[in-house]
């Protein structure tokens, strides 16, 4: 037994290496949201395209829907935008935008230029609803279920992989 003791430092070194390797792969920007499985915060915001109309959380009761936080100043939003347009074409669930800390005219021009995948966008120029949703890295995407509970939050631009492996399976589960 004693002659294997020299392996202990080696084992300790390997354990440390594995730990550090895992640490390298973790993204410190991905903060686990405490909002998962909690009721979505209440909101009442103007529509981006019509200041006279208000959209509330209660309007969404009874349906699974997605909320995508975006802004015309957000570079990563442009990156994910074609994916959202393609996703919206499938009409799986209603997709709403939260236009975060933006200028109304800029935002409308941005949608006109790159295409509008949203059923409607909520205009959150002061970013208060964004704060209630714990938004800190635009773009962010939420999946909210029939009971108004947040089931998924994705921080950063969507990728085909995220849609295929995280969002679509969850939507299937929620609809069933």
């Amino acid at each position, binding site marked *: 037994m004693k002659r294997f003791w020299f392996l202990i430092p080696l084992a300790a070194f390997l354990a440390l290496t594995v730990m550090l390797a895992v640490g390298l792969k973790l993204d*410190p920007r991905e*903060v*686990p*949201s*405490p*909002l998962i499985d909690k009721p979505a915060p209440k909101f009442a915001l103007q529509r981006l395209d019509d200041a006279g109309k208000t959209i509330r959380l209660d309007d969404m009761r009874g349906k699974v829907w997605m909320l995508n936080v975006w802004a015309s100043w957000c570079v990563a939003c442009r990156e994910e935008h074609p994916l959202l347009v393609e996703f919206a074409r499938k009409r799986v669930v209603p997709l709403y935008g939260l236009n975060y*800390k933006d200028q109304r005219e800029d935002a409308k021009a941005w949608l006109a230029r790159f295409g509008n995948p949203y059923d409607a966008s909520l205009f959150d120029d002061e970013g*208060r609803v964004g704060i209630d949703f*714990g938004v800190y890295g635009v773009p962010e995407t939420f999946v909210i279920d029939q009971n108004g509970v947040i089931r998924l939050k994705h921080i950063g631009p969507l990728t085909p992989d995220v849609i295929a492996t995280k969002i679509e399976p969850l939507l299937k589960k929620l609809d069933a």
Partner: protein
Amino acid sequence: MPEVISKAFVALLLALCAAQATAKEAAPEAADPALEARMTRITAELRCLVCQNQTIADSNAGLAVDLRRETREMLRQGKSDEEIVAYMTARYGDFVLYRPPLKPTTALLWFGPAAMLLLGGTVLLLVLRRRTRLAADAFEPDDDEEAGERNDPAAPTTPATPAVDPAAATARP
């Protein structure tokens, strides 16, 4: 001509100083100094989510500015410090706290360093105690000449050859 250049240089320096002065960290809004001080004290304990190594009090990121505004508003509404911290953790989790709470998930964070120190100290103690019990000839002999050479800055750092000097070795206790 050199005077003109030196004057221009001084002017440039002054301009740079002015730029430095405006580039300082988030300036407080001095509407109500007491409220502002309390707001700063609370937000100095909170991590800015956008630039994660700054506090919400320090950061000029848009989100930090908004969160200071929200904090100010909550203070005006008479909310307690605990209520404001609860507001932040409800949205961003314990991650916003620079002093994480003691919970099962944070036990490693709190006690990990002490446990590592204890483990290292125990191993060191065991090794040292074992060594004191060993006979002197279990060690490689030291060589005074070689040690002197190593301290000599003029000497090039060549790999030390193990000196074999039985007389020196046996002379040690």
